[in-house]
């Protein structure tokens, strides 16, 4: 009897200590970071999916023990993609929530919150905006998303070196999206020995492109680089093909959208698009990621590559916390910035390798997708330099 009571007591004690330890692990103070994204308003369609991707990444990180036993937690705030609201949210994250790092997106929002991040010395990670200006926003603003220089440089070199195209025409939309990229394409293509035969542009409000396209037709290029938006690029290409311009068109991530194929069908002709994130055609984790979307939401995410980058930003934050913890430093924005520059190379599940440079740019691979007979097919990878 005594023996039985003794065994039972030991069992109860073991259970008590085990459960106490378990409870202690669960109640450990989480490592927090800010996630300022548009959750309502016109951009919510994309913002909400990006937040969802980050929340699943956090779920996965915590399921594997978090950061040395402490869970990772996101403080999600709504910016509505509005710079004014973005400033309020960034201020709240820095001064009320006191997070040392926050993730945000939309170039106008990133530009607006940059002074807050710099003043409060909180690390701001821009994920999604590709304007080169993002690299010039101050000491505490870094991007985890490749800026326009990566894909445009890559595709210009690829056209010259691998496709033997010597005469290029450039057609761009006359706004921030088109201007810089078109200039960069010309510079790179000319520098490696190519000839730019004509440069044409169109206004964002244009509904007809005949004049510019006929100028391109007359200049008879080997290849045409188009830097437009997903809204106008299909109709530019449609008019191009209607006018009998059948040269290969290269473009950037912005038009990598099923809509392009739906709107053009087989009339799309030969189009090569630079994707900044691998997709399920050639990267298995993305396939699993898309299956998760279908299982939980019954659909694929809006703006897939952006969700991949925002999802992976949780892994970047995890790596930063691990570095600061290992160095036994206080969890401040200054130390998070130090961690970013010390770690620099991040291996993430959905995007792969992301290399953050000291000049606030990012190197990553560019994936070339070719439209063949009205379908996207993987063409080649331009590795991260």
């Amino acid at each position, binding site marked *: 009897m005594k023996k039985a009571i003794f065994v039972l007591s030991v069992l109860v004690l073991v259970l008590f200590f085990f459960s106490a330890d378990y409870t202690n692990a669960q109640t450990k103070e989480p490592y927090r970071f800010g996630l300022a994204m548009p959750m309502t308003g*016109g*951009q919510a*369609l994309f913002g909400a999916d990006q937040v969802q991707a980050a929340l699943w990444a956090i779920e996965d990180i915590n399921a594997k023990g978090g950061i040395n036993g402490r869970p990772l937690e996101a403080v999600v705030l709504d910016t509505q993609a509005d710079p004014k609201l973005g400033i309020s949210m960034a201020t709240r994250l820095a001064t009320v929530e006191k997070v040392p790092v926050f993730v945000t997106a939309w170039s106008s929002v990133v530009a607006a919150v940059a002074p807050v991040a710099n003043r409060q010395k909180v690390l701001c990670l821009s994920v999604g905006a590709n304007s080169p200006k993002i690299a010039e926003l101050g000491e505490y603003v870094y991007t985890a998303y490749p800026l326009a220089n990566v894909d445009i440089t890559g595709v210009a070199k690829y056209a010259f070196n691998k496709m033997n195209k010597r005469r290029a025409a450039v057609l761009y939309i*006359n706004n921030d999206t088109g201007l810089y990229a078109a200039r960069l394409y010309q510079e790179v293509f000319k520098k490696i020995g190519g000839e730019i035969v004509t440069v*044409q*542009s*169109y*206004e964002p*409000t*244009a*509904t*007809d492109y*005949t*004049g*510019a396209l*006929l*100028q391109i037709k*007359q200049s008879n290029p080997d290849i045409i680089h188009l830097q437009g938006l*997903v*809204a*106008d690029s*299909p*109709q530019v290409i*449609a008019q191009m*093909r*209607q*006018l*009998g311009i059948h040269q290969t068109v290269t473009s950037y991530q912005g038009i990598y959208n099923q*809509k392009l194929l*739906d*709107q*053009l*069908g087989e*009339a799309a002709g030969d189009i090569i698009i630079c994707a900044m994130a691998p997709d399920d055609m050639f990267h298995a984790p993305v396939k699993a990621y898309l299956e998760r979307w279908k299982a939980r939401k019954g659909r694929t995410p809006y703006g897939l590559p952006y969700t991949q980058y925002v999802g992976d930003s949780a892994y970047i934050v995890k790596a930063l916390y691990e570095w600061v913890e290992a160095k036994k430093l206080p969890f401040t924005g200054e130390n998070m910035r130090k961690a970013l520059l010390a770690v620099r190379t991040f291996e993430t599940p959905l995007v792969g390798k992301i290399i953050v440079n000291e000049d606030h740019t990012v190197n990553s691979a560019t994936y070339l997708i070719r439209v063949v007979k009205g379908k996207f097919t993987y063409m080649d990878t331009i590795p991260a330099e």
Partner: protein
Amino acid sequence: MILQIIWTSITSSSYYILFAVSFALVLKVTKIWNFAQPGFMTTAFYMMYWATNNLSLPIPLSLSIALIITILASWAVDKYAFGTLRRVKSGGFTFFIFTLIFSEFVAYLFTLLFGTEPFTVFPNIFSPVIPVGGIVVSYWDLRAVTITGILLAGLYAFLRWSKPGRFLIAVSNNDRLAELYGISSRQAYTLSMVLAGILCTFGMYILGTKIAVHTHLSLSLILFAVAATVMGGIGNVFSAAMAAVFLSLLQGFSVLIIPSRWQNLLLYFFFFMVIITMPSGFLSFVRTMKGRRE
């Protein structure tokens, strides 16, 4: 190349013509600068898109649904908003502000319902082409020109030969005098708004089968309609149509001479000069000069 630009500019002006005529007609009859028109244009497009893509209805049915809803919206705005403002004898500025707010409201309403993603009426926008004497003519071109031609001819016939059409002209010339002859200016105002709704719906059908439309596109398109109305001379509905063609040609050809980024500047400089030097409109000015020479 020149012939191609002329042809494409004319076909591309088709929807601009309908928007300009619609704007000019309401201005002529009601004396209201109807910046609520983008709201009707947005409504027409999204109803058409919704009926075609969400309800999978054939285009004649979708177009009919869009027509009914846009006409109802035009009627409701005239009856409940303009009517109220008229009753309290509001000034032109109040009407102007109301119409702007209405269009913004509609744009944000449809943004909430459909998002910011641009849509086309049909999933595929590629229109087959036929070469005609060295000019590329697409099926879309033919459809746009035909619809616009029929609508303009119909409107002309309606205003010239039908009783309600003549009443409309009478009210636009002098509404008080028209009232003395037993013509209801109230009904004429409503009729002009309904006609504007019809023109806008067909304009958005032509536009939406060529380019992707988003919720704020109509607000930028209306500036072109205003420019054409002023250039054509306020009160000249069909001159606004001619001005729309002229502006479209001007834009098309300017690409050959100046970079595209100067296009809008050129357009607005021209517009600015017309307002300053020819307040009664460019076409009226040309007619006056011709008359003087004769």
